[in-house]
């Protein structure tokens, strides 16, 4: 049995993972990145717009924090938000010092542009491919430092002790499947494991996220006892191409692009969705309008609406929106100079995730999380554009430093079930959520007594047996289950959420879970068995889908990205709290913890979020 030993093991090598690894290395730790994709293939590379940081005179971190808090609809935790705003400038300058090719002003300084919800143009960018440059620049720095990368290693389990209370548990490493050779190997982390596995958009049928964004990190952490936070908050983007989910930026509407339905109506105005702003209304408003049109039979092919920019003229389109022409042609086969582009809302970003404090720590000691998979709670119920990339580097760095032993002071955000102030017991679910036969979890049964290495070995053995079993038996193909799961999520837990739909989704998720018990991998090969990988991922998607739906069902208000038909207003009196779900060894438990609005210098007052 192969067990690789390192001080810090970082799972995932996107923006967050790379930053964490570099930070741990800076701190003198022996660090390794374990990632299912080669680092440069991570989805951070898809980010276009930019990265927010208060760099200039006239701007300061407090303004950034204020904007972020307001954008979060007062569901973000002030200590985390302030940390983000305070650390971002230094981190962005650091990126520049590492050579990141930011766009430049005439005086040679990095360019910044205005972005939605920001009181100052602080979105620093590198062309229309900020994420690509950020990812590559950091990978280059990892190469420079000789950081060990285990690429195409799929991490499928964490090695966590099985104390009853998750807050007593310790993480000593993880188990990974070497995709190329088919070996199951262990990673023993002497100081800590950092999860940085990115988004989970594959829960939905239609997403701007990569095929590899399957929420493995949150699912693994969740099953090992770490609570997941605010899972109901999923951001949808109104203009994505129907066949692939490729994002068409707001720029098109900004330049004057119009949306119309199958009857040729400019519905944003004619349908009364946004009489003033029209197409320029916010992401969630436009998304809902589009779906309403489609649901009421005015969609094209019952699926999408048209985004038209032909009237802007070929010249202007070529000049300002050239990359859009390429996107539409390459990925949808449509030339937007001659035809309108089909668009529909797509999942874009998950605000919720693994509960952490502002140092990236989870309640399990030795287990950290950073990036989109985590929820330190900076985005609350809605993420501002350009706020995810700074999150990656700020919290990636903090998690890496902390894991490698740097003292970052005591965190102000509480984690773990002990932070609970209220338990949800009245949630009326049509089926029992959680494992089919309790108890079940991903913690190694060890009576919490064994040596760390042995704990990792046990986890490896367990995983081997599970994989062996999936490879050998006959049964259902995961793709069918995944398809049904994505379909139900898209139909019932999408932009619109109604109680009955959410319940229906829970039933289907339950069914999926049952079918998943009999899942089998039909490719018998040990070499690059992607069938097996996707099968394991589908298992994770089921857990993630369930938490999203449970959270959505519990939260009876309309806040940020979460819209409930029965509850059309923000209820600050009752709902200024985070929705927490703990796996609880197979019988999930829903509870709440309060939002921290107390900042370093001031208390944030919930205000009506109108701009």
């Amino acid at each position, binding site marked *: 049995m192969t067990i690789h030993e390192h001080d810090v093991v970082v799972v995932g090598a996107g923006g967050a993972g790379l930053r964490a690894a570099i930070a741990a290395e800076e701190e003198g730790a022996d660090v390794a990145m374990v990632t299912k994709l080669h680092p440069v293939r991570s989805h951070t590379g898809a980010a276009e717009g930019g990265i927010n940081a208060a760099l200039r005179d006239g701007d300061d971190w407090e303004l950034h924090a204020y904007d972020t808090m307001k954008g979060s609809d007062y569901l973000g935790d002030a200590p985390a938000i302030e940390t983000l705003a305070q650390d971002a400038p230094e981190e962005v300058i650091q990126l520049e010092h590492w050579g990141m090719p930011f766009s430049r002003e005439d005086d040679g300084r990095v360019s910044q542009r205005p972005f939605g919800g920001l009181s100052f143009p602080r979105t620093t960018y590198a062309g229309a491919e900020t994420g690509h440059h950020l990812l590559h620049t950091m990978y280059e720095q990892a190469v420079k430092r000789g950081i060990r990368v285990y690429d195409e290693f799929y991490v499928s389990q964490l090695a966590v002790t099985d104390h009853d209370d998750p807050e007593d548990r310790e993480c000593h490493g993880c188990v990974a499947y070497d995709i*190329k*050779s*088919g070996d199951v190997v262990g990673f023993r982390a002497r100081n800590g494991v950092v999860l940085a596995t990115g988004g989970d958009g594959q829960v939905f049928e239609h997403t701007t996220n990569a095929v590899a964004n399957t929420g493995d990190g949150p699912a693994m952490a969740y099953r090992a006892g770490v609570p997941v936070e605010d899972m109901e908050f999923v951001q949808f983007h109104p203009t994505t191409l129907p066949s692939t989910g490729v994002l068409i930026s707001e720029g098109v509407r900004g330049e004057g692009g119009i949306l119309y339905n199958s009857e040729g109506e400019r519905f944003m105005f004619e349908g009364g969705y946004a009489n003033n702003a029209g197409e320029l209304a916010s992401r969630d408003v436009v998304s809902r309008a589009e779906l309403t049109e489609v649901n009421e039979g005015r969609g094209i092919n019952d699926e999408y609406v048209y985004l038209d920019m032909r009237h802007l003229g070929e010249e202007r389109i070529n000049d300002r929106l050239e990359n859009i022409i390429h996107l539409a042609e390459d990925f949808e086969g449509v030339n937007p100079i001659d035809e309108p582009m089909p668009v529909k809302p797509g999942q874009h970003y998950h605000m919720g995730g693994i509960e952490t404090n502002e140092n990236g720590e989870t309640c399990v000691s030795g287990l950290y999380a950073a990036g989109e998979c985590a929820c330190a709670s900076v985005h609350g119920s809605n993420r501002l554009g350009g706020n995810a990339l700074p999150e990656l580097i700020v919290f990636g760095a903090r998690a890496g430093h902390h894991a490698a032993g740097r003292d970052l002071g005591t965190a102000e955000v509480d984690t773990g079930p002990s932070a609970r102030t209220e338990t949800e017991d009245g949630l009326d679910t049509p089926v029992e959520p959680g494992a089919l036969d309790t108890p079940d979890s991903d913690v190694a049964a060890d009576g919490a007594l064994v040596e760390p290495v042995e704990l990792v070995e046990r986890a490896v053995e367990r995983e081997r047996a599970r994989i062996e079993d999936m490879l050998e038996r006959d049964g259902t193909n995961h793709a069918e289950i995944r398809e049904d799961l994505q379909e139900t999520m898209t139909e019932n837990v999408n932009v619109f959420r109604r109680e009955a739909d959410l319940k229906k989704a829970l039933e289907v998720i339950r069914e999926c879970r049952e079918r998943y018990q009999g899942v089998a991998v039909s490719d018998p090969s*040990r*070499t*690059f068995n992607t069938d097996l990988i996707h099968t394991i991922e589908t298992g994770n998607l089921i857990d993630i889908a369930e938490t999203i739906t449970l959270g959505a069902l519990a939260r009876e208000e309309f806040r940020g990205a979460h819209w409930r038909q029965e509850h059309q207003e923000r209820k600050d009196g009752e709902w200024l709290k985070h929705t927490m779900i703990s796996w609880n060894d197979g019988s999930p438990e829903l509870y709440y913890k309060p939002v921290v609005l107390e900042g370093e210098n001031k208390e944030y007052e919930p205000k009506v979020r109108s701009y």
Partner: protein
Amino acid sequence: MSQSYDRGLIEDFGRWKEFSAGMWAWIFHKFTGWVLIGYLFTHVAVLSSATVSGEVYTQTLQSLESLLVVRVLEVGLLAVAAFHILNGIRLLFVDLGIGLEAQDKAFYAAMVATGVITIASIPTFLGGI
């Protein structure tokens, strides 16, 4: 266990149909270059007759020139040289970074010019038999 499969070079050349202008230019240039250096060696060997005596030299050359094959081969040599020169010039431009966007057109132009030069010179080369 993994082990990989190397498809080898042979397969590559089976793909000639899929080659693009730049690759054809490369192959032709290589081929013509080799022919030229081969010829240079032969050429010096033939001319070496001059070290024996003037008569032997004149005789060798004239008897060679009286052979049709030799004259035909000379046309070939001209074609080869013309292409190598023209494409050589194209390459020199490429080296200087000039007109890279038109490199494929330059290759086609070199081909056409080679053809024209070759045909135009046939009367001179084959004439006088």
